[in-house]
């Protein structure tokens, strides 16, 4: 029996603090691939919503698909859910025989999936009736259904609403119902699209706690969100998607490594006048050539010269090689360049969330486009 399916009845989250800050001790992730997207493409007319996406998900991993609204996250997930057909490319998913199988094959051979897509909608029935229907239709053991429903409704604090019609639920409660139905039958792979949409801060913490518990059980989780900070701490890997393309797919550490230590902010006391701006930037760029981050130069035209000035914030952003000794040299260059008519009030690495910053940087690097998916 797979390690991911054994512990369905252990989803006990009675103590909040137990799960909110504990480090995740999940089973070791193997290298067994449970899902692979190969050159997955979806076009709506001439608009390319998803453009040749390649992602490989291993057993027990938690993958975050992160991108701004309209980046192609939901379209990707809908293709995995077979709600829309890919224009080209393929989705391979683990089957019961332990092999990867095309999603176009026989559904009944596939391992169990749980889905939460967009804002979930439910039939005009009570929570209990709806969940019973989902569980029975997916062949969940009859004798365990009641206990499982009670367990999940209690976990998400909906137990008092068990026999109330879902149409009387708030948006956040419906979102919780969506998450409950996605994990109800103890699926091996859980795919969640914006699971924290519409939830209040407390409920978001509960959702994160639930995801942590599922991670502990060794579930494979694929979660899409535009709120990077909400899921970054949960994910083993992050796939940054923008304009339908994966612009980065790696562990958080590696993503951070690429950018976090290669950026400096230099805050000035007075703004640089427009007349002096071009000359100042040119002089700085000339002097900073030995220290600039050449990786960034290759990846984006915005950062050709390693220095960028923000008029509103009165600050320079410097993309450099990340070496400690360079930092001092750069500071000296700035001080000598600006000493006559300005003052440096802060010289530091970015204070905002590292990953959030990476996300924003990468999104900015990518060309803007219209439409969404």
């Amino acid at each position: 029996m797979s390690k991911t399916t054994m512990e369905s009845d252990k989803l006990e989250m009675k103590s909040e603090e137990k799960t909110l800050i504990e480090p995740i001790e999940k089973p070791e992730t193997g290298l067994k691939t449970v899902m692979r997207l190969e050159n997955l493409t979806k076009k709506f007319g001439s608009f390319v919503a998803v453009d040749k996406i390649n992602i490989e998900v291993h057993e027990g991993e938690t993958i975050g698909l992160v991108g701004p609204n309209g980046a192609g996250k939901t379209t990707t997930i809908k293709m995995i859910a077979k709600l829309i057909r890919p224009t080209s490319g393929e989705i391979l998913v683990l089957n019961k025989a332990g092999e990867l199988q095309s999603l176009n094959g026989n559904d009944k051979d596939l391992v169990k999936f749980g889905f939460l897509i967009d804002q979930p909608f439910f039939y005009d029935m009570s929570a209990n009736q709806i969940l019973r229907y989902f569980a029975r239709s997916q062949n969940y053991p009859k004798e365990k259904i009641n206990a499982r429903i009670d367990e999940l409704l209690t976990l998400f604090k909906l137990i008092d609403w068990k026999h109330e019609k879902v149409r009387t639920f708030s948006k956040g409660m419906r979102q919780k119902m969506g998450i409950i139905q996605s994990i109800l039958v103890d699926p091996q792979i859980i795919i969640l699209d914006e699971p924290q949409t519409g939830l209040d801060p407390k409920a978001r913490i509960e959702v994160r706690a639930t995801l942590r518990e599922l991670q502990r059980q060794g579930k494979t989780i694929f979660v899409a969100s535009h709120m990077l900070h909400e899921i970054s701490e949960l994910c083993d890997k992050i796939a940054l998607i923008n304009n339908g393309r994966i612009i980065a797919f790696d562990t958080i550490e590696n993503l951070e490594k690429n950018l976090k230590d290669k950026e400096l902010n230099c805050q000035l006391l007075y703004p640089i006048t427009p007349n002096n701006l071009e000359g100042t930037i040119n002089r700085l760029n000339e002097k900073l050539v030995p220290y600039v981050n050449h990786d960034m130069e290759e990846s984006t035209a915005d950062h050709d010269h390693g220095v960028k000035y923000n008029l509103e914030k009165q600050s320079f952003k410097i993309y450099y090689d990340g070496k400690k000794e360079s930092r001092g040299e750069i500071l000296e260059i700035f001080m000598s360049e600006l000493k006559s008519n300005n003052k440096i009030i802060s010289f530091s690495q970015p204070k905002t969330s590292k990953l959030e910053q990476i996300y924003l940087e990468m999104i900015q690097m990518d060309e803007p486009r219209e439409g969404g998916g």
Partner: protein
Amino acid sequence: MQILEKKEKFDYLYLAVLPVVTTYIFELKKQWKKFVIFSLIAVSFIILLSYLPYALIPDNPLPDTQADYFQSGLNFLIMIVIFGSCFFFSGIICYEYDKKTGYITFPIINKYKLVTGKFLGALTLLIGVIAAFYIALGVLGIYWYGGPINYRYYYSFGIAILYVLAVGSFVTVFSSFMQNVNMTIVSTIMILLIANMIIDSLVMLLYPEFEPIYSLNHASDLISYILVEDFPTKLEDRYEEVEFRNFTRRRWLTPTIVGGITVFLLYTTICLVVAAIIFKRRQL
């Protein structure tokens, strides 16, 4: 070994049928209120049109026979079937797309099983509604004329079930491509009540001798006409010549039994195949 193979086959079948059965039961629960409302309307129709006029108006004579009484009462059934079909079947496919509920059951239930369960549930409920109609009319038939019930009344019920199947399938086709339930209800009611009547009238004018064998309206005449003891076997007995402003046209009384049943089955088959094709191609 054989026992194991049999068990495997049974498990396979069980897993294949389970989503259909659970969806069917869920659909019954989901539309239960609609069933009660339509049943009450059907019974009220019977009381209003087949009981009160004879009970309250002394000079209003009852039809000669129990069969004639049933025949007059069954005229209202068509309306109930049309409205009932539109309300019970309209959401079968388009509701899932409008509300984007399809993801819920993937991949254990495929969408065809989901829709099959819903279709069978809606069909059962509507058959229940017309059964209530037939029972109420039957009880009144015994009340006015004494028992037993004319055996042809049961034939009529069987044909009415086929009619429900055909109209339900017709509505399902619309549900497969319409955007939402309300649009499906309005458009199918318009077509079944008005458009079909206009088409039949036009055909009658253009081809006065042509029997409208394509028409669901014409086929539905069989539901009440089957009660006629000497059901017409010859073509000339199945229509009446009607004079209207120097124009003679045929008013068709009933199709043949085989003809009527064939029309219902053809409608059902064609509509369900078309709905399945559209459904297969439809994406969220």
